[in-house]
């Protein structure tokens, strides 16, 4: 078990390292950091001095190590475009993205599992079939169109919910949350639905397939032969077995929700990291791009590790 978790951690570290290398290469070789920072009027001496001060004359591995060291301390340099520390920009926008991503993941997971189990148990039912058809269409719809459709229906036509922004947020320390105000909560609804929808259909189809597979297993038949109530068989014996493969794949998926938020945030003008990243790409703001990439890799590694942790606790076969 320990070995399994250590391996998982090493894999996470490897991902961060690889992505770090890509981020650093972008940082170092795309555009000219010296020209960008020194400005138009700098003399050659100024440039040489800046090059030396930035450590750009050091060997590549040294520079890379320094980059990683700074990154570990949250130092990603200065945004070319906004002339502010990248770390500050990220910290400012982190709460918005995390709140959106976590709620979407939760929404997708809960409803995905509920609908998936329902569709598996009532395989021939009308509702179950309707759920499957909707999910099929959902997979072919790009996220931004779902967002636009929801805005059109709930904001433009019905006028029930706001179409952009976070509404009023409450500041708690450095964190900001929209959950404590009514306008904040209302503002969250559409973005959460948009970001969660694709994941929801994915999880639902997966849960349904795995549950159907599990219900064919011999131990389910044996549980029936022992006279266990159907309810207990479905929700205790079958569900737990269904969740093992589901959790692995869902973990991988949810790690990428943060990155999927790029599109949703742009549609809803959500002041989060994704919108910041799109802006950075438009204006080739390399430090922001590199920092965002590192952030996504970090989240990915953490979520992956937590998935393995859950996996190990529910599957006894991994403990011995």
């Amino acid at each position: 078990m320990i070995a399994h978790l250590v391996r998982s951690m090493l894999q996470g570290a490897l991902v961060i390292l690889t992505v770090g290398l890509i981020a650093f290469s972008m940082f170092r070789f795309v555009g000219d950091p010296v020209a960008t920072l020194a400005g138009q009027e700098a003399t050659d001496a100024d440039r040489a001095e800046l090059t030396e001060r930035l450590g750009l004359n050091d060997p590549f591995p040294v520079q890379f190590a320094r980059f990683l060291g700074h990154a570990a301390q949250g130092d990603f340099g200065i945004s070319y475009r906004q002339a502010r520390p990248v770390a500050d920009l990220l910290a400012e926008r982190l709460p918005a993205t995390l709140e959106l991503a976590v709620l979407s993941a939760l929404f997708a997971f809960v409803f995905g599992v509920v609908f998936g189990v329902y569709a598996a148990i009532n395989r021939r039912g009308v509702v179950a079939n309707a759920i499957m058809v909707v999910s099929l269409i959902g997979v072919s719809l790009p996220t931004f169109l779902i967002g636009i459709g929801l805005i059109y229906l709930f904001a433009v036509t019905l006028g029930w919910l706001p179409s952009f922004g976070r509404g009023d947020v409450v500041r708690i320390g450095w964190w900001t949350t929209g959950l404590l105000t009514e306008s904040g909560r209302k503002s969250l609804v559409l973005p959460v639905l948009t970001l969660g929808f694709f994941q929801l259909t994915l999880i639902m189809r997966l849960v349904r397939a795995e549950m159907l597979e599990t219900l064919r297993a011999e131990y389910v038949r044996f549980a029936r032969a022992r006279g266990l109530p159907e309810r207990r068989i479905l929700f205790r014996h079958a569900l737990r077995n269904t969740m093992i493969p589901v959790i692995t794949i869902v973990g991988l998926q949810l790690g990428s929700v943060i990155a999927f938020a790029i599109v949703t945030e742009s549609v809803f003008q959500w002041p989060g990291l994704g919108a910041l990243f799109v802006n950075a790409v438009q204006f080739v703001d390399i430090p922001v791009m590199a920092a965002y990439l590192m952030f996504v890799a970090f989240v990915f590694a953490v979520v992956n590790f937590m998935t393995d942790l859950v996996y190990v606790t529910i599957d006894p076969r991994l403990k011995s």
Partner: protein
Amino acid sequence: MNEPLLSVRNLRVEFPTRRGILTALDGVSFDIAAGEILGVVGESGAGKSITGAAIIGLLEPPGRIAGGEIRLKGERIDNLPADGLRRIRGKRISMVFQDPLTALNPLFRIGEQLSETIQLHTGMKPAAARERAVALLTDVGIPAASRRIDAYPHQFSGGMRQRVVLALALAADPELIIADEPTTALDVSVQAQIIGLMKRLCREHRVAIMLITHDMGVIAETADRVAVMYAGRIAEIGPARDVIKNAHHPYTQGLMGAIPTLVAAAGRLTQIPGTMPRLDAIPKGCAFNPRCPHTFARCVVERPELLQAERSRAACWLHAKAAI
């Protein structure tokens, strides 16, 4: 004569399919006495497992009981509502499956699976149920049961798992255990142990066993009586010794000829020519007539019922002649 424990009369099981209704069991009748081991043999597809599944009410949909009746101590159980049947399962009739590797839920300790079943059927408190679980595991020959009870299924070998499965089947002291090929998936040496265990449990717990298998050797060793099935019907039923040594149905004779024994090893293995018909192509009259060496006119038009033949009964017109 005592009332039998289980009595099956004219059982008919159908599977509606797109191409029409398949009759998997047709007019199956037999009894099992309390504490008796009835062996049920036949080729795969003969309807052995379906008979077992029908008795315990676990036919895979779309299979359904289309006729006949099943009585447990005189009380009809084939037409019980789903919940009534569920209360009988595990408590009065248990079932043991072929593959012990897949019959246990891998995510629950065997103690949890045992206690769950015991508590459900006996209403015992958790502590008492656990005590009973340890006793059951000891009884089926699990060493250090009080410690092993907290292990997961994957920590047991195949033979040990089948013992756990038997303990689960015994959890609520049932009157009948339906054992569907309980030794087929095991090593030969382990097979013998499990067979021995089942015989002992049958004796000590006064539980009847319906032992479904295609292995005549297993039957010869354990069964009190034997039912031979062919194409969804019973071909012959009688005391084990008679059916094996002195078969009356041509199919049984062929089947017995196919058991390799030390004595017969020098001679040739008798094989029955042809194969069992598919369910959608069962011939008129006796289902065995295309393969039978003794077929005559009556066999191809009229279906034989079970007819007395010495101490056995065989579904064969040869014995009608003898009776007349």
